[in-house]
């Protein structure tokens, strides 16, 4: 039987591969002896012992075949001898390749450091992802997120006004907490020492970390700013293998830092953000590194060492363990500083084994959180990580990565580990002894004056919010949708106590009906429900003219909500919270969503 002719896409992939070849890559392509020693180092293999296709060299062989068929002497003459005859030829082969490259590997590089030949399988898999992306073959979530990062400059589709609004909101919250406005977040401050770049997940779903970082910067007396553009430290180019996107995203940050004239970029706790901004971005963009870049972990550690902030570890007495992000530890050698900091701000740190560069992936790496079609496989592969965590007996898993927070949160629920995930910024903020910090010691009188006497501060509307705080949802209508009666009752009580008028629904159909008749200001939506699921109900809400403008806050304990965040068949929800939810956080979050929607409408 004669072979089918190569399709246009395959030819494009071959051309693109030729562009990506360098000595190191070729070394990895020709160096594999198929010894199988990397097999048991991969979390996919360990959790799928009966599926040989999970082995790292099989994944790398996909791009190796393409290389051998086109560049290798033996492969060009006798392709069948070296497996090059199985190189992809038709577009049908590409779907299979997509599943392998995106669905069975998180590019964690654990096999790389365990290959006796020095073969960098993770880099080869990223190259395969890049070839597929080049011809438009990728999971839907990757497509949507990449598009947003190209077009809007951040991977979660956050609009500039929403970003700035969130910074303002966090400044206001800080003002409420501290009783003065000194810790407000500076935006685009020219000549500041530090430019702080964050993960858009912080803006969209976890703004608390921005507030905590702002508090720490203020306490240390730092001259800092957040940029209005180029603030996203993450980079989907790392995951999609698209070096063009990688370079463009990194350059936005560098250009903004240059424009502001800052001394350094401080990168919030994000593993792939750190790797992309600090290490790979300069290679992708060709931009020679002109200024220092560091992780906020190092910044916080230095503040403590220099005495700019003072911490009390007894404020964090629970047992903690530390999960190393693969990008931080394996690809950037960044693993001792988080431990040093952790020991300073907690009292009971239990190491996880293996750790540092040998740690297992959280299973959410490589963009896996955005590929909902692979969620069951991801959660199965998380068994290894779950066992690692369980053995530590920790109540809190600390990590320096937002992706890992999501990956770990999912697996903790799935394997019922009963612990929570935190980042170092949370623990440092909790451990702060504010009265001992630089800012208080250097200006004690001024601060006291701001808190009690400054007329301008007292005249501002936000601090004088006592009545609103008592009933922050007064006059609001909230529809609570959840199939579990006790959770529904809890949510209804919380919202009613906050002054809202509340209706409830137990499934997707009831939700749709009540959304039309009750016309709520916000829907609190569970996703996993019998009958019409929350995901389906959400999509229908968004597609129906009458209900499409109602803000939705997803409150769920299951990972399928990532589908609506990343795949985005319709605009994403305005907020999401993980179960179990904290009452105060729920109310303030929901109040903010409603206020923000109104402000936008006006």
């Amino acid at each position, binding site marked *: 039987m004669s072979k089918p002719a190569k399709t246009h896409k395959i030819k494009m992939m071959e051309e693109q591969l030729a562009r990506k*070849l*360098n*000595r*190191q*890559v*070729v*070394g990895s392509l*020709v*160096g*594999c*002896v*198929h*010894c*199988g*020693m*990397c*097999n*048991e*180092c991969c979390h996919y293999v360990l959790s799928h012992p009966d599926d*040989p*296709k999970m*082995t790292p060299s*099989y994944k790398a*062989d996909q791009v190796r075949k393409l290389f051998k068929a086109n560049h290798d*002497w*033996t492969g060009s003459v006798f392709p*069948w*001898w*070296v497996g090059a005859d199985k190189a992809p030829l038709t577009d049908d082969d590409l779907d299979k390749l997509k599943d392998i490259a995106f669905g069975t590997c998180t590019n964690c590089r654990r096999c*790389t*450091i*365990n*290959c*006796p*030949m*020095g*073969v*960098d399988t993770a880099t080869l898999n990223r190259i395969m992802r890049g070839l597929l992306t080049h011809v438009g073959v990728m999971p839907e979530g990757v497509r949507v997120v990449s598009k947003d990062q190209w077009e809007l400059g951040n991977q979660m589709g956050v609009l500039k006004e929403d970003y700035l609004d969130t910074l303002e909101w966090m400044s206001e919250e800080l003002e409420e907490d501290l009783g003065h406005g000194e810790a407000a977040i500076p935006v685009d401050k020219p000549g500041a020492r530090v430019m702080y770049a964050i993960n858009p997940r912080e803006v969209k779903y976890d703004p608390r970390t921005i507030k905590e970082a702002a508090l720490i910067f203020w306490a240390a007396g730092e001259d800092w700013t957040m940029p209005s553009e180029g603030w996203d430290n993450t980079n989907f180019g790392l995951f999609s293998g698209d070096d063009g996107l990688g370079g463009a995203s990194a350059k936005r940050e560098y250009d903004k830092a240059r424009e502001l004239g800052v001394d350094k970029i401080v990168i919030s706790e994000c593993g792939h953000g750190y790797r992309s901004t*600090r*290490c*790979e971005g*300069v*290679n992708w963009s*060709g931009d020679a*590194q002109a200024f220092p*870049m560091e992780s906020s972990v190092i910044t916080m550690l230095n503040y403590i060492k220099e005495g700019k902030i003072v911490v009390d570890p007894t404020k964090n007495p629970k047992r903690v363990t530390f999960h190393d992000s693969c990008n931080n*530890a*394996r*690809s*950037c*050698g*960044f*693993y*001792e500083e988080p*431990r040093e900091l952790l020991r300073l701000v907690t009292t009971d740190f239990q*190491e996880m084994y*293996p750790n*540092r*560069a*040998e740690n297992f992936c959280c299973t959410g790496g490589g963009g896996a959180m955005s590929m909902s079609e692979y969620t069951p496989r991801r959660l199965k592969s998380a068994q290894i990580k779950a066992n690692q965590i369980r053995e530590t007996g920790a109540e809190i898993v600390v990590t320096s990565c937002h992706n890992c927070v999501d990956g770990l949160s999912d697996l903790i629920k799935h394997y019922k580990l009963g612990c929570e995930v935190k980042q170092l910024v949370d623990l440092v903020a909790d451990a702060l002894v504010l009265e001992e910090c630089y800012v208080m010691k250097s200006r004690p009188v001024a601060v006291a004056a701001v808190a009690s006497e400054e007329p301008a501060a007292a005249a501002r509307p936000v601090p004088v919010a006592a009545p609103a705080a008592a009933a922050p949802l007064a006059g609001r209508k909230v529809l609570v949708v959840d199939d579990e009666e006790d959770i529904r009752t809890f949510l209804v009580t919380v919202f009613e106590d906050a002054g809202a008028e509340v209706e409830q629904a137990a499934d997707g159909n009831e939700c749709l009906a009540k959304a039309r008749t009750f016309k709520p200001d916000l829907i609190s939506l569970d996703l996993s429900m019998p009958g019409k699921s929350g995901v389906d109900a959400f999509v229908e809400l968004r597609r129906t003219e009458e209900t499409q403008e109602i803000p939705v806050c997803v409150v769920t304990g299951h990972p399928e909500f990532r589908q609506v965040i990343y795949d985005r068949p319709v605009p994403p929800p305005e907020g999401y919270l993980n179960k179990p939810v904290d009452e105060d956080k729920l109310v303030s979050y929901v109040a903010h969503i409603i206020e923000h929607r109104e402000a936008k409408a006006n």
Partner: protein
Amino acid sequence: MHESSSLLHTAEVVHWIALIVMAVVYTMRLRWLFKFKPGVDRSAPGSPARTNAKRGGFYSLFNVAMPWSMESTRKGFAFYLTFVIFHIGVVAGISLAFLSTIAPGLVAARPFAWVCGVALVAAFGVAVYRVFRRLFRPVMKLISTPDDYFSLFMLTIWFGLGAVTQAHLAGVAGFESVNLLVAYLFLTSFFLIYVPFSKISHYLYYPFTRLWIGRTLGHRGSYPIARG
């Protein structure tokens, strides 16, 4: 060169010609590899107080002799041992082929015969195990190409033939036929010519791949691997 038969003489000549061919092809292979642009890492050193590219490269290059350095060799220590035995066998086999033509007295000497013979027999045993492993383990079957099978089969035969050739050269009763040496030299010649086109050429690339990954990860700060 000794000339106990014209066939043996031919085998020896072919063997040396094959060696020259291999050297030429290897040189071409390396030129090919170095025609690709070098990868450049513009990022600032990851952890200069702890390590650097040089240290990482050095560590990486020699981690083959440090089975504790990788989880795969720590946990798979038995497999690591088979790897060591296999490659000692390769060294013994090559030494036997060359020394039999330039120092026949040495290969016939008892100490050499014992060391080389044991190394070849052990390597043969390991190679047989590896054949079964490749034939019957689903993972190995999935990733193996005809080149992988053929190279391993041929090496297994070469180790076996090397062991009996060593017995012949040491004058062990029952292994008197000079044809053993002739066959061994022809098989070695075949390898010398085949190797640059097969997976066995990995040893040519090995120092470079190890050095490069070591320098990369050393620069980034993760090599040498730290544990705690």
